[in-house]
């Protein structure tokens, strides 16, 4: 299955792009996706512990099972106001 991944804030600088697509086995979780992304973008791995992840417009935990076509967003801690 295929998911699209969007980066925000300085995660775009760390990966050098705004968005990518990833091809994953069925039943993959967010944790699986993140491992794959860390291989592809080593600089992103350093942010492991301060990374927020959403699917669509809702936050999801690492054990969330992805579906084909999901829109995943990765970003650093938020700073509104």
């Amino acid at each position, binding site marked *: 299955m295929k998911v699209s991944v*969007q980066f*925000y*804030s*300085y995660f775009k600088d760390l990966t050098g792009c705004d968005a990518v697509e990833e091809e994953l086995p069925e039943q993959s979780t967010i944790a699986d996706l993140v491992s794959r992304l860390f291989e592809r973008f080593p600089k992103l791995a350093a942010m492991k512990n301060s990374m*927020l992840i*959403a699917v669509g*417009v*809702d*936050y999801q935990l690492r054990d969330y099972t992805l579906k084909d076509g999901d829109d995943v*967003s990765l*970003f*650093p801690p*938020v*700073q*509104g*106001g």
Partner: protein
Amino acid sequence: MTRNLTISPGPIDEAALVSNRKMSAGMGAAVYFSGVVRGIEGEGAISAIEYECFHKMVERQFHLLFDELEKRWPIEAVRLVHRIGTVKVNEASLWVEIIAPHRGEAFAACQWLIDEMKRVVPIWKKPVP
């Protein structure tokens, strides 16, 4: 509870917003917060802050917070404006209004909303030298 959310690059016209306040006869308290860009960020002087956001998720997360606000306090109305894009020093990036029967709940709700916003609403800032 009526809700009014604006995420926009335009300047926040606080005077106009205050003039448009709507309060029913049972309400006794209006609390406002204006968050203004400061000239110092971290170590150095800056001229502005550039706000980036994940717009659709910002709206979703604010409405989840408004749902919770409504459960916790007897708020009649909330209005919130957050600027995105470049906001110069001394200009407001955030404006919040809470209307409630009494000041205690209005202050509590306003502070809670801002604290939670800074935890979950996907907006990021970048200082402009």
